[in-house]
């Protein structure tokens, strides 16, 4: 179980003569991911979802708040002491083409972490061979045919499986998958998503999925929690299918409205929510961060910032003064 409380992160951009600029990447984010659970962070690029994922994986520092892994707060620990905790959280990057060293075979790629692991636990070379075959089988690859291959001899989907296999060599508790399928061919995407779901069920690995494509978030498990992030703030949170069917925050509704409708298969929603303006990340105001783009904004939204609170009678949470259920996703055409 990994939890975060009030995580903040501010990037300071070196500026010109007028001074530097601060970018609030995260503005006090809370999250909790159960052992074997699934969570998805969704939002536009620049919303802070990747930064949060990197902080959780221990690849980035945060300015405020506290991260706890298995009940142990990371704050008071020295970097060296944190290492074993963060080693159990492995990152899967978006681009499997650049995540693998092109001059190394799959065998070499997997053996680098396995050697380290073997030295720590006092295992021998045979264990390494067995473990390599085991993790490859777990990700649905045939060890005999892929071990001697180089990345360029594999398809995008197979490479991503090798990346996941490499992450599994260290027995992780959690995989942080950052847009892990967006560069994979469409016909193979579901295979990778199904694999992540399968690893959750079989190994009890938690999966944190970072994406801008809400639909993919369902496929790592419908029990997953969805965190909708806007400019560093969680604006809506809840079980993935509930949020898709019944979003109450206008930003969530905008995101869902923007998903292309498969005309012929689906019937577009009658009242999609379209944001008024494009994202301007440099605009700082005391009120709701989404107010400038919100078609439903009222006076209060300009002056006061709403905090995350429970949506009436549900376990969902939202950060909006005027939450309203709006059905914005396309419905399947009946009979198809």
């Amino acid at each position, binding site marked *: 179980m990994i939890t975060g409380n009030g995580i903040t992160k501010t990037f300071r951009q070196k500026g010109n003569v007028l001074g530097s600029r601060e970018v609030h990447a995260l503005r006090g984010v809370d999250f909790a991911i159960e052992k074997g659970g699934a969570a998805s962070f969704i939002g*536009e*690029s620049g919303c802070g979802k990747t930064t949060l994922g990197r902080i959780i994986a221990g690849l980035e520092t945060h300015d405020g708040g506290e991260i706890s892994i298995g009940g142990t707060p990371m704050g008071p620990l020295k970097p060296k002491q944190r290492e074993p905790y963060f080693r159990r959280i492995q990152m899967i990057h978006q681009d499997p083409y650049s995540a693998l060293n092109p001059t190394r075979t799959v065998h070499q790629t997997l053996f680098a972490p396995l050697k380290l692991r073997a030295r720590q636990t006092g295992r021998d070379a045979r264990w390494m061979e067995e473990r390599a075959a085991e993790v490859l089988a777990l990700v649905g690859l045939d060890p005999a045919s892929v071990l001697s291959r180089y990345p360029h001899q594999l*398809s*995008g*989907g*197979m490479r991503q499986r090798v990346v996941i296999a490499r992450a599994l060599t260290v027995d992780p508790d959690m995989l942080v998958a950052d847009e892990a399928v967006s560069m994979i*061919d*469409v*016909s*193979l*995407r*579901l*295979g990778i*998503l*199904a694999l992540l779901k399968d690893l959750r069920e079989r190994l009890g690995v938690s999966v944190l999925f970072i994406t*801008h*494509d*809400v*639909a*993919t978030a*369902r*496929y790592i498990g*419908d029990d997953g929690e969805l965190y909708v992030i806007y400019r560093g703030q969680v604006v809506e949170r809840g079980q993935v*299918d509930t949020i*898709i*069917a019944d979003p109450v925050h206008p930003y969530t509704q*905008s*995101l*869902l*409205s*923007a*998903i*292309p*409708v*498969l*005309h*012929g*298969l689906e019937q577009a929603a009658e009242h999609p929510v*379209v*944001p008024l303006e*494009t*994202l301007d990340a440099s605009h700082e105001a005391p009120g709701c961060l989404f107010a400038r783009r919100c078609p439903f904004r009222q006076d209060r939204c300009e002056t006061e910032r709403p905090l995350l609170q429970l949506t009436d009678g549900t376990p969902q949470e939202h950060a909006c003064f005027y939450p309203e259920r709006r059905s914005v*996703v*396309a*419905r*399947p*055409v009946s009979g*198809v």
Partner: protein
Amino acid sequence: MTKQAPGARIDDLTVVYKTTAGELPAVRNVSLTLEPGTITGIVGESGSGKSTMALSLLNAVQPPGRISAGSVDIDGLGDVVTLQGEQLRKARGRHIGYVFQAAQNSLNPLKTVGKQLLDLGRSHGVEDLRGLVKEAKELLGRMGLDGARVLDSHQHELSGGMRQRVGIMLALVLNAHLVVLDEPTTALDMITQANILKIVREVHKERGLTTLIITHDIGVVAEVADRLAVMYGGRLVEQGPTREILAEPQHPYTKGLIRAIPRLIGDIDEAQALPGRPPTLATVPKEGCVFRERCALRMDVCDTVDPQAVAHGSRIVACHAVTVKEHA
């Protein structure tokens, strides 16, 4: 200057790439008609030959690739495969606008957008450069941008969505009426993507264009295209009206591709990945159907005979199983 939306007819086009294993076809015997004033979407996975096919509309396939057979006939221009040198350069831009894949990165980082616009104008012999700038500003304004500001900006000062719109402006500013958009929304956010697609639809209508969109994302095509063409392994396997294909795909690959789309609602288990992997230039079968390795309806004939594209009503499908069913 008003022009009619031109039609284009790609006929039996084959494009080969020279490799150490000889010349391999990236696009093979493809025929596709772009009716004047329509938006056609070509969908395919990586290596399906969709970008190569789009480039051949400009006769711009780069060595080691070459168009080895077939013709690309564009109204008011003739067969572009036979055009060369200066003639060809003039046709690009004037007649055919091309928005490149990753238009975000196809701008010159050292020059402002305005300077690049003037370069474009000069190289095409535009005498009225002021008029060109005015036209560009209008186009950018039409797409919701501040034209003057954008023309004064360098690439790094613009967001991904803004650069994409600059790409569309540069493709249209010389009054081309056949426009090719290669992956226009890849790497953009959902909201920006929806915005760009809306612009594409509106500009297409207002200016009377014939538009071709190349994408790997069926959603993009579903959202904007009248007609859909599905490519696999260098072949066009199915084409027809977008809605009809989505509602009732016929080719097993189209069926599989649509089933593989992660959907927002409905039964999670209904969506399934297609088994196997798409072929690459080197692994495309030399004879027989290109899809047979992944096909559930594979028959003996598929191993040896390449299925011909056969018209079934408004649909053109290249599949033995579908043809057999039709004639049974």
